[in-house]
C-alpha cells in the first residue's frame, strides 16, 4: 500500500515535470502541479477539479488568459496562442521552483497534522489551493472558480 501511494506521488511529480517541459519552463511551478492533478493520476483530486470545470485543457486555457492579462498590466498586448514556440527539451529536466516547493510544503504539513503517513493527490490539491497569492489563484479567479469553496471541498476529501 505504501509503495502504491509513493508511486502516485512519483507519477504526479513526473507529470508536473512534463507539463513544465511543455511550457519550456526551467522550473516546475505550482501551476504545473495543478495541471498534473487534473490528470487521471489525480484520482479524487482530479474528479473534484473536473466538477469545478477545471479539466487539464480548461486550466491550460485559463493559464494562457492569466498570462495575457498580466502582460497587459505592463502594457504588452500578446495573444499567447500566436507566440513563436521553441522545440521543447526533454532533457532540460526542470527543477522545483519556489511556488511548487511551497505547494508540497503546505501539503506535507496538512498530511502531518492529520496523521497521514503519505501525501495523497488530495493533500497536494489542498497545498495548491491554500494560498491567495501567485499564478494559480489568479488563474482560478479568471476561470470563474471559487477557490475558497474548492479548498473546503478538498479538505473534506482528506478529513
Amino acid at each position, binding site marked *: 500500500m505504501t509503495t502504491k501511494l509513493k508511486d502516485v506521488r512519483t507519477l504526479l511529480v513526473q507529470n508536473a515535470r512534463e507539463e513544465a517541459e511543455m511550457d519550456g519552463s526551467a522550473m516546475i511551478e505550482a501551476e504545473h502541479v495543478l495541471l498534473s492533478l487534473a490528470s487521471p493520476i489525480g484520482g479524487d483530486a482530479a474528479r473534484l477539479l473536473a466538477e469545478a470545470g477545471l479539466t487539464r485543457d480548461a486550466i491550460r486555457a485559463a493559464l494562457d488568459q492569466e498570462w495575457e492579462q*498580466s*502582460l497587459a*498590466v*505592463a502594457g504588452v498586448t*500578446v495573444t499567447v496562442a500566436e*507566440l*513563436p514556440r521553441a522545440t521543447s*527539451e526533454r532533457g532540460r529536466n526542470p527543477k522545483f521552483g519556489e511556488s511548487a516547493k511551497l505547494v508540497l510544503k503546505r501539503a506535507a504539513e496538512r498530511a502531518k497534522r492529520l496523521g497521514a503517513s503519505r501525501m495523497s493527490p488530495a493533500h497536494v490539491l489542498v497545498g495548491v489551493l491554500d494560498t491567495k497569492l501567485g*499564478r494559480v489563484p489568479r488563474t482560478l479567479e479568471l476561470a470563474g472558480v471559487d477557490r475558497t469553496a474548492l479548498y473546503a471541498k478538498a479538505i473534506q476529501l482528506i478529513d
Partner: protein
Amino acid sequence: MDPTDPAAGLAAVVALRRLADRLEDSQVEQAMRAGWSWSDVAEVLGVTRQAVHKKHAARLIAAGVALRRR
C-alpha cells in the same frame, strides 16, 4: 486593471519574465537554424558565448538543429 495594485504589478513581472524566456528559446533556435554562430547570438543577447551555449546547446541538439562550431 489597476497598475498601482502591487499584486497585479508583481504578476506582470512574472508574466514578462516568462515571455522573455519563451522568446529567447524560440529566437535562439531560429537563429541557429538559420546558421548563426554562438558568438553572434551571444553578442546580440549581450551575454557570453559560453552562457548561451550552456543554456541552449543540449535542447537544440536534441531538436536536431545542425549547429555551427563554437
